[in-house]
């Protein structure tokens, strides 16, 4: 029904060249015999909030560093706004970076840190002061100008780093795991705030993260990295609902694969298929009950081997009779923990709509 689609088909190819904030072609990087990035093609449109998602060691940070100019590529090109910058030094590129550990200058005040980019570009003193104060205000840090970085909390330092980069109004803002060092609550706040700031300033944000939830909630589009290459590029919904490869299906959410003999018997087709846990309905496997499966649905019977009660929802691990195991996520609309715990070991039938199952390629 949904044949495996090559990643090129997901990448919008209609963006005119002039509107590319970033364009990477055949980008490669090896450190000695270790290949960190193995040929990456990527287009990021102007004004996009774009995430590079992948596990550590997948090459996403190296790609970011090559765009910033800290690493020179072993092969391929980096274009910013249609201009080839592959061989340019970092200070010759119209990008700014928010570093993972913020890299604030410890010997300068907050204001001096934010002014730094304007100062080295010889912007007159009064103008740079006004712009720096404005930038600090936009990240809600007015009143902190005279502090030293050491006197700020992690979240405040993060916002100084953001202001220091944004005050230069770069073509592209690069963010390297920008929220990695913050605790959960602060991270959720900053996710919303970053998104709001990006909408406000209209600058292209290109950020690196290993947190799939962060990538899905914040970005317009996501590129999923694995072993130095891109597995899939698409909107969060595309990545989540129609993972192109088994790796994407597993890295972004729970993979829930139906494969081999199980696929043949349940779906009547060969191949590997994925269904997200929340798309599965759990109904009793009662032979006497009227058949709950309609013609646009598929179903499989199995035994509940595990029940995990998680407050708003419950996770059922079901071992299928035909082999393999699926995880079903059910909202606890009317049930309580008492009810669901009793289901362990019961025979159930999992039902899902055909349009929610997707064929995926092997990676």
């Amino acid at each position, binding site marked *: 029904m949904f044949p495996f689609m090559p990643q090129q088909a997901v990448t919008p190819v209609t963006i005119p060249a002039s509107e590319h904030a970033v364009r990477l072609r055949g980008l490669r990087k090896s450190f000695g015999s270790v290949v960190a990035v193995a040929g990456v093609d990527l287009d990021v449109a102007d004004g996009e909030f774009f995430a590079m998602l992948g596990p550590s060691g997948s090459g996403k940070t190296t790609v970011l560093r090559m765009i*910033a*100019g*800290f690493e020179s590529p072993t092969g391929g090109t980096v274009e910013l706004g249609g201009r080839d910058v592959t061989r340019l*030094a*970092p*200070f010759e590129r119209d*990008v*700014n*970076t928010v*570093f993972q*550990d913020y*890299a*604030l*200058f*410890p*010997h300068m005040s907050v204001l001096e840190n934010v002014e*730094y*980019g304007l100062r*080295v*570009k010889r912007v007159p003193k009064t103008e740079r002061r006004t712009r720096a104060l404005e930038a600090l205000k936009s990240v809600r840090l007015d009143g902190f100008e005279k502090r030293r*970085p*050491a006197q700020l909390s992690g979240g405040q330092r993060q916002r100084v780093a953001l202001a*220091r*980069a944004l005050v*230069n109004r770069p073509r592209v803002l690069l963010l390297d795991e920008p929220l990695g060092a913050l605790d959960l609550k602060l991270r959720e706040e900053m996710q919303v705030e970053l998104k709001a700031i990006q909408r406000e300033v209209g600058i292209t944000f290109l950020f690196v993260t290993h947190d799939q939830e962060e990538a899905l909630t914040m970005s317009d589009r996501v590129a999923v990295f694995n072993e130095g290459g891109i597995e899939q590029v698409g909107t969060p919904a595309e990545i989540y609902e129609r993972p192109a490869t088994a790796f994407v299906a597993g890295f972004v959410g729970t993979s829930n694969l139906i494969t081999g003999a199980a696929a043949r018997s349940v779906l009547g087709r060969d191949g590997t298929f994925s269904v997200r846990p929340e798309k599965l309905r759990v109904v009793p496997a009662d032979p006497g009950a009227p058949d709950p499966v309609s013609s646009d649905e598929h179903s499989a019977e199995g035994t509940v081997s595990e029940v995990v009660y998680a407050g708003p929802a419950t996770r059922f691990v079901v071992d299928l009779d035909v082999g393999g195991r699926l995880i079903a996520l059910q909202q606890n609309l009317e049930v309580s923990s008492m009810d669901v715990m009793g289901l362990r070991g019961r025979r159930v039938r999992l039902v899902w709509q055909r349009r929610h199952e997707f064929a995926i390629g092997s990676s």
Partner: protein
Amino acid sequence: MNLSRTARASLWTALVLGLGVIYVPLGVVVLNSFNSDRTFGWPPPGFTLQWWGAAWRSTGVRDALWTSVQAGLGATVIALLLGTMAAFAVQRYRFFGRDTVSLLIVLPIALPGIVTGIALSNTFHSVLGVPLGLFTVIVGHATFCVVTVYNNVLARLRRMGLNLEEASADLGADTFTTFRLVTFPMMRSALLAGGLLAFALSFDEIIVTTFTAGAGVRTLPIWIFENLFRPNQAPVVNVVAAALIVVSVVPIYLAQRLSGGDPQTR
């Protein structure tokens, strides 16, 4: 960990004894510089400032002091330049023989002064034909002063990492601007600490100095050594020694505070 009473008492005794062996004689030197007895009778029959006055008026002392300051400053300047450059090269670049170079820079501090002295003296005098004098003293001192700057700068570079310089370049600063606004200010206290240590090392050096100084050149330690056994100069020697103690303690104390201090909090 809790120690038993006996253990605590014996450790304290060991500490007091150990430090006492080092510092009591120094205290005696300082006291003797005020001793009114010309032959340092003990206990001192009385105290006087006479010897301090005599030392102050002695042209021999003043010349020697000036020579020492010149030698110390010269050696420190060379150490700062070479030590910093070597530290940057070793910390920031990968090249063939990097570890060997690092070892060769640190080695002179461990080499016996007498070996360094003879080697330099021979090379200057017989091989290069450079006349021995203040210049050769400065070069001689610089060989081991480089280490103090090198070690301080190397440690600072290691702790600083590359992040700040990358951030500076990212914000549009070229290499020179980055050095001026970020790298150098971050290095400043390390350079000061290394420089002070280098100066202190040079200021009280005697062995290498003996071999590399020409006939007319007399640093303060050399002057002390020459006058130690002349009875009429002995009280003045005590004064100079006492003054040297003070002059050495101050830079070492400052250097220790500077290199121990965290740049993040200043």
